[in-house]
C-alpha cells in the first residue's frame, strides 16, 4: 500500500497559511495551552453557512478546502477523518446546559453538532459529496486509523483521491480537567522550553491538518506515504524497539537507513524518556526532530507532524525550529513519524521523497 500526498492544508498554533513561509517565524506560548491561529474564515466559507458552524467544524472545513485547492481537486472519492475528542465545545455546551438546568430549557443545536462525524459530514454537505465518509475516534490512533483506511481505499481501487483529515480542539474546560489528572502541566512554562521540563504532564494543544491522498503522482506531489502502523500497550521498551524495526523492515528499511525521525516529545518527562531511549538506541544514527512545542499535545498531533514532514520532503528544507539532533547532513529522502500516548497508543507513519 502506498499513497501520494498531492495536496495539504493545516491550521495550527503557528502560521501555516502563508505558502512562502515554512515555520520560520515561530509563535511561542506561556499559558500551557497552544491554540490555533484562527484564519479569516470568510475567505473560505460562505458567511451564511459560517454562522452555523462551530469552531472545530470551521477549522476542519478551512483546512480541507486548502488541501483540495492545493491538489486541484473538486470532489474526493472518500472523506475520512480522525478526531480523538470530536466536537468538545458543543459536547460541553450541551452537557453543561443539561446539568445546570436539570434537563430543561435545552436547544438542539449543540447536540446535533456534538457527534464526532460532524466535520466529515459538513465537508460532504458543502461539496455535495455522496461518497464514502468515515470518522475514527480512538485517541492517538484516530488519525492513523483514518490514514490506514485511506491507503486501503486506494489499494482496493475504491478511490483515486481521498480527502484525509486529523483534527482536535482544546477547550478551557477539558484543559483544566486534564491538568487536574496530570495529563497537562500545572505551572506555566514557555512552549519553546518544552524539552527537559521536569514537571509532570504535557502542553495542551490543537490543530487541523487535511491531505489529498492519491494513487497517482502529480506535479504538486509532496511525498509518498509508504506505510503506517499502530501498536498497543507494548510490554517493554524492547517490544517497542522491535515493533518499530519490524515495521521498517516490512518497508525495506532499517532504523540506520532513516534520514530523519520525527518524535512526539510532549514535555512529560515520564513518557518523553521513551523517545530518549529510542534516540540512544535504534535511532542513534538518525537526525531527530520534534514538533509538539509548536502545536501542543492532542490526539491528532501526528497529522500536523505529517504536514511538516510532507512539506520538508517537497521543499528539501527542515525548519530549524523542529531540529533536535542533526546527525545526517544531507536533506532527507525518508522520514519516520513516531508518536505515543502515555505508552499506550503507539503509531508510525513512513514517508519518502518522490
Amino acid at each position, binding site marked *: 500500500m502506498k499513497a501520494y500526498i498531492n495536496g495539504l492544508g493545516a491550521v495550527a498554533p503557528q502560521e501555516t497559511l502563508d505558502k512562502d513561509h515554512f515555520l520560520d517565524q515561530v509563535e511561542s506560548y506561556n499559558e500551557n495551552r497552544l491554540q490555533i491561529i484562527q484564519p479569516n474564515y470568510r475567505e473560505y466559507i460562505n458567511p451564511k453557512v459560517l454562522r452555523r458552524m462551530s469552531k472545530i467544524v470551521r477549522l476542519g472545513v478551512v483546512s480541507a478546502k486548502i488541501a483540495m485547492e492545493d491538489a486541484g481537486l473538486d470532489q474526493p472519492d472518500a472523506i475520512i477523518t480522525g478526531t480523538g475528542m470530536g466536537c468538545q465545545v458543543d459536547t460541553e455546551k450541551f452537557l453543561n446546559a443539561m*446539568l445546570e438546568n436539570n434537563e430543561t430549557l435545552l436547544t438542539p443545536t449543540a447536540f*446535533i453538532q456534538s457527534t464526532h*462525524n*460532524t466535520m466529515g459530514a459538513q465537508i460532504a454537505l458543502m461539496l455535495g459529496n455522496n461518497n464514502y465518509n468515515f470518522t475514527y475516534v480512538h485517541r492517538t*490512533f484516530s488519525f492513523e486509523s483514518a490514514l490506514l483506511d485511506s491507503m486501503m481505499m486506494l489499494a*482496493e481501487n475504491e478511490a483515486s483521491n481521498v480527502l484525509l483529515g486529523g483534527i482536535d480542539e482544546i477547550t478551557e474546560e477539558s484543559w483544566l480537567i486534564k491538568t487536574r489528572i496530570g495529563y497537562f502541566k500545572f505551572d506555566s512554562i514557555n512552549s519553546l522550553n518544552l524539552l527537559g521540563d521536569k514537571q509532570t504532564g504535557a502542553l495542551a494543544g490543537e490543530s487541523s491538518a487535511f491531505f489529498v491522498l492519491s494513487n497517482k503522482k502529480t506535479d504538486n506531489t509532496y511525498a509518498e506515504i509508504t506505510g503506517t502502523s499502530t501498536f498497543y500497550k507494548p510490554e517493554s521498551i524492547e517490544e517497542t524497539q522491535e515493533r518499530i524495526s519490524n515495521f521498517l523492515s516490512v518497508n525495506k528499511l532499517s532504523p540506520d537507513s532513516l534520514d530523519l525521525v520525527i518524535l512526539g516529545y510532549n514535555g512529560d518527562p515520564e513518557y518523553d524518556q521513551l523517545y530518549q531511549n529510542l534516540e540512544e538506541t535504534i535511532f542513534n544514527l538518525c537526525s531527530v526532530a520534534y514538533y509538539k512545542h509548536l502545536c501542543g499535545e492532542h490526539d491528532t498531533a501526528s497529522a500536523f507532524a505529517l504536514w511538516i514532514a510532507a512539506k520538508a520532503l517537497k521543499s528539501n528544507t527542515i525548519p530549524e525550529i523542529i531540529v533536535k539532533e542533526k546527525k545526517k547532513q544531507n536533506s532527507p529522502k525518508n522520514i519516520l513519524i513516531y508518536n505515543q500516548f502515555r505508552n499506550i497508543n503507539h503509531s508510525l507513519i513512513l514517508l519518502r521523497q518522490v
Partner: protein
Amino acid sequence: MSSKIVVTGLGIITAIGNNIEESYHSLVNQKSGIGPISILQTIHKDNFVLGEVKKSQDELIEMAEVDPQEPWTRTALFGIIAAKQAFNDAGLDKSKGKIGLVSATTVGGMDRSELHYTSFVHDAVFNAFIDTHHAGDSTEKIADQLKIKDYLTTISTACSSSLNSIMFGARLIKNGIVDKVIAGGTDGLSKFTLNGFNTLMILDKDQCRPFDASRRGLNLGEGAAYIVLEREENAKAEGKKIYATLSGYANANDAFHQTASSEEGDGPFLAMKNALDKGKLSPEDIDYINVHGTGTDNNDLTEGRAMIRLFGDKLPAFSSTKAYTGHTLGAAGSVESIISILSLQNNTMFPNINFKEVINEIGIKPISKVEKKELQHVLTNSFGFGGNDSSLLFSKYVGS
C-alpha cells in the same frame, strides 16, 4: 486466496436479552424490551419509555467478570459482555493469526461522565472517570479483557457507526492487516442522548411504530453486539461453524442536512445499491431487509422511498426491529446485523411490531407476523446524523 469473508461468532446484549438465545426467543415471541424507565436517573422518567438493559452497574460488573475497583462505564461493560460471547463463540485462539478489534460508539463513556462531570470540573472525587469519557475507552477495555493487541480502533459516525465497524473489519482482513476481526458497537444510555433526541422532538412517548402511518418518533435503547469475521478458508481449516457470508457492504453520504434525510433518500439508495453491486447481486436476489426504521416521520418515509427507487414493485419482505430493542445508536448496526444473521440461519423473518397502517405517501407494508421462508440474501441498513448511510449484505453460507 478466496476473498470470501464469513461470520463465525456472535455476541449480544440488549433490552431483549443478555445473549443470542434470549434475543432470538424475544424476537420469535414478539416480545419488546421497551418499557418504563427504571435504570436511567432522569427527570423524564415518567415521560418516555426506553429499551434499557435492566441491570445495575454492579450486576453488569459481575456479568462482565471484571475488577469492581476499576472505573467502568456501561458502554464498556456492555461491550465486554457482548465481545466476550463473540470471541468464545468463534473459539478465537491468539496463537492462530492476528486478531483485530473494531468497535463503534456514539457517546463513549458519557453515561458516567454526566454523573460525575461537576466533580471533574470542581473537585477530585471522580477523577478515575475523566479518562473513561473518550470514545476509545470502551474499545481498550474490551481489548484488555480479551488480550487483543494486534490492531484496534474505534469508529463514530452516529447511528451507522457499527455497520461501519463491520465494514472496516472486513476490509482489514481483505487487506491483510489482520486475520480475524471482532467488529461491532456499544452504547450505554445517557441523559445526554435522551435529552438530545428530546430537543429534536423525535422521541415517541410510547413504543415506537416503525413504518406505521401514526408513527411519532423513536425510542432509545442500549447494549452492544459484536460479530467475528474471518476468511472462509481460515474458518474451514479450523473446523468452525459458519453463520453467514458478509457478501456486500457500502457507505454513502446523503449530503443533504446534518440531521434530516433528503426527500428521495439519496444516501440510503446509494448505500443499498452499492452494497448489492459489491456483492454482485441484483435487487431481485434480496429476500429480506432489516431496515433502519427508527419510527421517525423523516426516516421511515425517506428510507421507504429509497427502497422503492431501488426495488421498484419487487420490494422484498422487510421489517424494523427497533420496536424490540429501541434505537441502540452506536450498537444499532451490529445488533441488527446479528438479527439479520439469525433470520438467515433460521429462515425466519421477525415482524415489525406495532405496525397497523401503511404510510400513504409510500404505501409499503412491513411484515407483521413471524414468517418462515428460505432466505439466501439479507440486507440491513443503518443511517445516521451527518447523512452517514450504510448497508451490509449477509448471505447464507454456501461451501466452496
